[in-house]
């Protein structure tokens, strides 16, 4: 990247304040702009999956296993079939005869669409009923008799590899254990040297418990296989419609050009809507079998018990440092619980996602991690919940370890971080595990966060309160994200390289349509992508229609997750708009009868250098491009372009967070008093939307730290199967968020933007936990696992924090 380009990115960064305004008052480029999509949502006119009604549509419902591990001896569906409103009952045996009983997962494992031999987690799909209405479908489930022979379940991830543990995946020939993968990164020998020479080594076991993204809308599908045309139209709550279409083609052997996947309005995704679920496939099978459209929508318990969970990482961390607080090395050993099928949506060369970014924001001499994936009798999934492919777990680990080290050294955690953060002149920085961080000024972000929080005053207040027996805690976290997967030669999912396409067409009247491969679940793409194109072409954003979520209407791409939209698809949109601008230059030159080299671009207009009166606006050029104007050799008419963006590297947003909590000494209840978040995601296309995304992620962090966990009992019963058991933060648990920003453009992204979707979810849990542990210092508490519920905090105060992943009665 040249200096000029860096400067251009920087100029874009500041363009928000100065972008010219359209007649409608919108920035023609970056800046705060109200959302286009709001108009329909506010009127109740969004079109979500369950809003879709087709003539003759039938309804599907899934019978699920009550056991975590059991052999299926027999299934009797006769009573269900006799129900007057039931059209079809499908079992694993039906699917087996069609060769559809198993489907590929996004991690190249297989998963049962409907169980045939045995069930492997509570909530697993066992039978599918298609009926005239949703009530009748559920009635019929009750009429199905399944004869189960319970087997011993494997619930504890750390025990899954015991030699005498029951083998879950007996379907895999020759499989004699519950091992999924081993993955290592870093240099163990160098780590040994550094640790041996260190003054101080701190060790800690910690579990990042299983969590669930729980978007407010559950997952569902409406499938319609047209028996005449042979075309399958599938509306799916999907964050990745193109990837889903390709997998459908592979699973069912359907020709891909006869499959149209449509993601309608999506009521939140957060990663939950990336994987392919048996219910989606069953809706298709149901439609094939009945010849009618079939709708399947899961209820909340089904969503929490069977769809893509997150985390479930059991980590042993070790950090080495000098006595004067120079961090030298970090190593970690992880047991990763992947549930009964390995269905993580990781890039294929990264079975533990990007967890090996665990060295965080610090300049270390050595690092090593080892991750062992195991099968357990729990729902499959694994990478979900705004985690940027496991960077959430990595940030939590390193930020807890740094706090533990500060405690050991008797150093202030802010000072310890400041001393060890990467310095601006070290960028681009290659980490011990091979990531190349693109740009950053970390100390500046931390300083801003500390200033905004009034850190010194807070510490003084804490000392006073402690003297009065009150429990106040201050927690920090500093995170480096890595988003926008990825360079396609390194990153693919099921062999599909992680690049994204974009198409732009300017109509003769100067209005435009831009077609994206990514899909919005609330991020406001219809607004921000119009702004990206506007910033490059000078067409007002209200004149640019954004089309997304329909595989027949949009170019191929891998979809929206891992904060990919802005880093990958946003780059594609900028590139495509620049291509159109370049072509517009040739058309303008033809019209002005001058050389293209004599033209200069300014505010949506090409004009003759030195004579701004001689020019053509992009709108005029659009008409000329479609007119009979004679164009030079090789220049085609019309004004459009397409691009596929293959990112050269990830982008690396970062941030510094400060959380202040008060703990009730009598009950252990934690109240988050303040939360200061300084984020750097490069230039902000629409600051209003960026801030909104941060707010949402911070609420997630508070939820994960204090409330949310999907735990199991020893029999493998899911203890988080409803919103009464799986607690999510309401407006009462969330403080007013205090946001700050620094702006460091990515040097390799066309508009310098780094992406923001997951930053706050990644960075905030550690700040909350660090704050609570800090509050409990008078009790000598070093660590307690999330979620820090009143009971857990109270137990920690008694010196015996509990496991939070398994309830032992």
């Amino acid at each position: 990247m040249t200096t000029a380009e860096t400067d251009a990115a920087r100029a874009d960064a500041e363009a928000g304040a100065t972008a010219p305004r359209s007649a409608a008052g919108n920035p023609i480029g970056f800046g705060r702009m109200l959302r286009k999509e709001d108009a329909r949502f506010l009127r109740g006119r969004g079109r979500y999956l369950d809003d879709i009604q087709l003539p003759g549509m039938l309804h599907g419902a899934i019978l699920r296993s009550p056991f975590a591990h059991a052999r299926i001896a027999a299934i009797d569906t006769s009573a269900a079939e006799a129900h007057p409103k039931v059209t079809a009952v499908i079992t694993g045996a039906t699917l087996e005869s069609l060769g559809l009983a198993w489907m590929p997962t996004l991690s190249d494992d297989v998963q049962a669409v409907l169980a045939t031999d045995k069930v492997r987690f509570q909530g697993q799909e066992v039978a599918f009923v298609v009926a005239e209405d949703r009530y009748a479908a559920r009635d019929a489930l009750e009429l199905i008799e399944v004869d189960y022979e319970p087997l011993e379940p494997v619930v504890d991830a750390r025990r899954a590899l015991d030699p005498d543990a029951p083998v879950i995946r007996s379907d895999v020939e020759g499989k004699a254990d519950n091992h999924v993968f081993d993955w290592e990164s870093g240099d163990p020998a160098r780590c040994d040297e550094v640790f041996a020479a260190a003054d101080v080594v701190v060790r800690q076991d910690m579990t990042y418990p299983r969590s669930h993204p729980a978007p407010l809308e559950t997952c569902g599908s409406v499938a319609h296989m047209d028996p005449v045309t042979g075309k399958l139209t599938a509306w799916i709550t999907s964050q990745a419609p193109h990837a889903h279409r390709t997998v459908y083609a592979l699973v069912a052997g359907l020709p891909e050009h006869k499959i149209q996947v449509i993601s309608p309005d999506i009521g939140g995704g957060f990663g939950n809507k990336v994987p392919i679920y048996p219910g989606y496939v069953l809706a298709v099978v149901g439609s094939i079998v009945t010849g009618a459209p079939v709708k399947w929508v899961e209820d909340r318990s089904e969503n929490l018990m069977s769809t893509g969970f997150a985390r479930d990482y059991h980590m042993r961390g070790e950090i080495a440092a000098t006595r004067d607080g120079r961090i030298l090395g970090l190593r970690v050993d992880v047991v990763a619980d992947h549930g009964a099928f390995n269905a993580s949506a990781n890039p294929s060369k990264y079975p533990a996602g990007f967890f090996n970014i665990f060295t965080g924001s610090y300049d270390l001499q050595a690092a090593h991690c080892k991750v062992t994936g195991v099968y357990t009798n729990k729902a499959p999934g694994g990478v979900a919940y705004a985690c940027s492919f496991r960077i959430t777990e990595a940030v939590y680990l390193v930020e807890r370890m740094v706090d533990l080290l500060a405690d050991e050294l008797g150093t202030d955690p802010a000072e310890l971080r400041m001393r060890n953060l990467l310095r601006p002149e070290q960028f681009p920085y290659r980490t011990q595990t091979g990531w190349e961080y693109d740009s950053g000024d970390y100390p500046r972000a931390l300083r801003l966060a500390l200033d905004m929080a009034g850190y010194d005053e807070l510490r003084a207040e804490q000392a006073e309160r402690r003297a009065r027996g009150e429990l106040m805690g201050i927690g920090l976290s500093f995170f480096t994200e890595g988003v926008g997967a990825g360079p396609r030669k390194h990153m693919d999912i099921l062999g599909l390289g992680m690049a994204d396409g974009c198409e732009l067409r300017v109509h003769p009247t100067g209005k435009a349509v831009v077609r994206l491969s990514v899909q919005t679940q609330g991020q406001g793409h219809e607004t921000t992508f119009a702004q990206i194109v506007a910033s490059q072409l000078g067409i007002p954003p209200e004149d640019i229609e954004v089309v997304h979520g329909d595989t027949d209407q949009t170019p191929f791409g891998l979809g929206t997750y891992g904060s990919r939209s802005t880093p990958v698809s946003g780059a594609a949109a900028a590139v495509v708009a620049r291509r159109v601008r370049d072509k517009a230059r040739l058309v303008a030159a033809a019209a002005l009868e001058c050389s293209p080299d004599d033209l200069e671009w300014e505010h949506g207009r090409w004009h003759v250098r030195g004579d701004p009166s001689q020019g053509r606006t992009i709108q005029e050029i659009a008409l000329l491009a479609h007119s009979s104007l004679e164009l030079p050799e090789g220049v085609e008419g019309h004004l459009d372009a397409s691009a596929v963006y293959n990112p050269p590297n990830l982008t690396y947003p970062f941030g510094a967070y400060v959380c202040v909590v008060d703990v009730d000494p009598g009950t252990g209840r934690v109240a988050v008093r303040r939360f200061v978040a300084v984020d750097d995601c490069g230039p902000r296309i629409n600051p209003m939307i960026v801030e909104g995304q941060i707010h949402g992620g911070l609420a997630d962090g508070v939820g994960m730290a204090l409330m949310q966990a999907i735990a199991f009992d020893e029999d493998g019963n899911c203890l988080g199967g409803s919103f009464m058991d799986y607690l999510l933060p309401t407006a009462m648990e969330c403080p007013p968020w205090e946001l700050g920003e620094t702006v460091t453009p990515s040097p390799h992204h066309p508009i310098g933007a780094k992406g923001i979707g997951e930053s706050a979810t990644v960075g905030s849990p550690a700040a909350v936990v660090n704050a609570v542990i800090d509050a409990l210092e008078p009790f000598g508490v070093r660590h307690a696992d999330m979620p820090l519920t009143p009971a857990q905090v109270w137990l920690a105060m008694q010196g015996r924090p509990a496991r939070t992943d398994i309830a032992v009665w």
Partner: protein
Amino acid sequence: MQVTMTVNGAEVTRDVEPRLLLVHFVRDHLGLTGTHWGCDTSNCGACVLWMDGEPVKSCTVLAAMAAGRSVRTVEDLARDGELDPVQQGFMQCHGLQCGFCTPGMLMTARHLLDRDPDPSEATIREAISGQLCRCTGYQNIVAAVRWAAEHPHGAAEVDDEAVTQSAPAAPGEGRSETEVSA
């Protein structure tokens, strides 16, 4: 069984099963899909609409129980093409992202403002505490309701401010600071 009720000012009569939930009645039978559904346990509030002027979770009410009553849904908030001030507030303050919780939040907010035209932020938080939003972290929802309180007649009376795009996202709550690379 046959039920008759007033929905958004118009009388409707339908044959329904006695067990039919009100949320499914308005969505599947009347096609008013603005009211959403999000949980099995009456915790999320995506389904909030008004029955006889009170917000209720319509997943917890049978259609039969609404017989003879008056139901109001989000589709009835805008009048003559003019958004209600709470709808305008949600837009101005970015009080929605995916939009799934929004109808329920809007109905609760309108009810709150009808009783308490100038609620504090704490009052607003309490009013929406039975409803979940997974996207916004609530702050901009609170700001949106405050916006509506401050603009009881909507944008009409505050022409300039309503169209300006640079109004603070969260008046009163939170704050923000910026540093840009040189």
